[in-house]
């Protein structure tokens, strides 16, 4: 069956990517003058304490063994421990996953809400001024750094208009209203910048549709251009857009990390940054691995959805030629 084969292949790619990424992360942290123990204890640590820590962390074992045991740990959910607090990385991450997920999730949805209609109009009107205007707006939107956008929004909506809070976070379970209020500006910032990037892809996906024969058929049976695009273009364009979305995931994550910093949201990004500031190397290593794992996993899932959208994917080679040709 074709579908099973495809899924298998994609999982294989996922596994290889994971291995490769973990190797990369592992090697970078190994490529130090001195070593992890030295970094964690700082420059004025005694050689004995450094040696002690080295043994504790298993840094005297051969590299391969270290890598495999680290990788093995990851597969069972052990991403390392914080040297400062002693807590396992995953435990430190757990309460923050929700915050970042809201941000990334709503951000992506928001970006689609912006990019889909804008891209469609830009495709339909590509030779007249609305098309040019949208493309120009997208061009400008892409050039705006996400943190500047955030700061400007804070300036307008929090400082001048006082409609929304400037930073901070309230969890959903505590107060839905405040939760939403604190998420509006961050999500809008992320969605706007990401949306601007997506507009180009949406536009070219729909321009492709406009050149297809089935679009012409739709027009010939009486659909106006916009309705023909909506009825027949969206599903077909989605097929090529789904791949793009998967690729965009890493960039959305980066945007989320930055936005968390602008708005002081207690998410994965801000934890990563404070671990870096404190030189808590193992936490940084573990968090980066976690984030990369999440990105690879989600883009694999997004890729699978493409198998669902396109009915041609599930085709067993058609033996049904039919007598009535």
């Amino acid at each position, binding site marked *: 069956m074709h579908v099973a084969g495809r899924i298998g292949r994609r999982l294989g*790619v996922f596994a*290889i*990517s994971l291995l*490769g*990424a973990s190797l*990369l*992360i592992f090697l*970078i*942290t190994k490529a*130090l003058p001195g070593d992890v123990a030295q*970094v964690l204890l700082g420059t004025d640590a005694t050689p004995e304490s450094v040696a002690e820590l080295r043994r504790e962390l298993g840094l005297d074992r051969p590299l391969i063994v270290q890598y495999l045991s680290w990788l093995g740990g990851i597969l069972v959910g052990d991403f390392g421990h914080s040297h400062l607090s002693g807590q396992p990385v995953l435990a430190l991450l757990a309460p923050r996953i929700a915050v970042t997920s809201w941000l990334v999730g709503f951000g992506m949805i928001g970006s689609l809400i912006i990019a889909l209609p804008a891209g469609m109009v830009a495709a339909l009107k590509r030779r007249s001024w609305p098309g*040019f205007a949208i493309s120009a707006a997208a*061009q*400008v939107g*892409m*050039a*705006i*750094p*996400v*943190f*500047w956008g955030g*700061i*400007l929004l*804070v*300036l307008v909506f929090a*400082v001048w208009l006082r409609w929304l809070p*400037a930073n901070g976070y309230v969890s959903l379970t505590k107060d839905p209203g405040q939760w939403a209020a604190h998420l509006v500006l961050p999500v809008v910032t992320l969605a706007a910048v990401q949306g601007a990037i997506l507009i180009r892809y949406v536009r070219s996906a729909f321009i492709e549709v406009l050149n297809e024969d089935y679009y012409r058929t739709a027009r010939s049976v009486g659909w106006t251009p916009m309705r023909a695009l909506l009825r027949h273009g969206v599903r077909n364009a989605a097929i090529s857009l789904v791949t793009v979305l998967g*690729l965009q995931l*890493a*960039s959305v*994550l*980066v945007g989320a*990390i*930055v936005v968390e*910093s*602008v708005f002081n949201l207690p998410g994965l990004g801000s934890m*990563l*940054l404070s*671990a*870096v*500031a404190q*030189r*808590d*190397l193992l936490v*940084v*290593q573990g968090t*980066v691995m976690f*984030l*990369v794992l999440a*990105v*690879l996993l989600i*883009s694999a899932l997004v890729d699978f959805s493409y198998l669902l959208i396109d009915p041609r994917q599930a085709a067993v080679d058609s033996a049904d030629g039919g007598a009535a040709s």
Partner: protein
Amino acid sequence: MKKAQLVAGLVLVALVVITAIVAVFWTPFDPIRVVPSQRLLGPGWPHVLGTDGFGIDIASRLMIGARTVLVVGIISVGLASIVGVPLGMLAGQLGGWVDEVVMRSADIVYAFPAILLATLLAAVYGSSTLTAMIAIGVATIPAFARVARAGAKQVMASDFVLAARASGTSRWGVAGRHVLPNIAPLIGVQASVGFAMAILAEAALSYLGLATPRPNPTWGNMLRDSQQFLVTAPLQALWPGLAIALAVLGFNLLGDGLRDYLDPRLREVS
């Protein structure tokens, strides 16, 4: 319309480059020395854009920022192309398992945004302009590899390469004499776009404190500083962001303009 794009891009890029070059030799005021008596002045004279929370002239700091931007862009794009282009050419010319290996590796690095690489480097070595440049450079390698590979594949399939190989030109000869010159324009376009992305990445990294540390000014860390004074001196938040946006826009327009200009000519290659 297309020409306007190219021209606009060139103008903006030229602005940044000229500012950067001038900044190497001269700025209106000292960009680092703290002058407490001049704190938070609004735009006027002699401080055209005002002063920041330490009394330092904003315009001077912006100019140094332009210099940093240029250096970061050149080094990271340079690094990415020196590593990425040969790899891509190899993959495109040889095909087979070499191609697979290179492309899979590129995909893995691609899943690593510059920020994550930068955090790893910063945790180990401490944040600096260098770690930022390396992180951005490495993260941009896949993009150059991909473009080089696609271009190489196209060239390899063309008639004049077949003729060259038939008449005995070695692989290296083909690479140097045919592939490289023909993909050079594509690489140029990618360099411009890559420069734009490098500027954004560096700005984000320095905003987050993962790149050039204070007191050296970069547009990103200037924005970070301005956030404290959002209520009292909101204009401060305008200038660095505007500078970033204009620079990125300029390089993007330049890249797009070049791409459009080269497009009909590219078709002659295949």
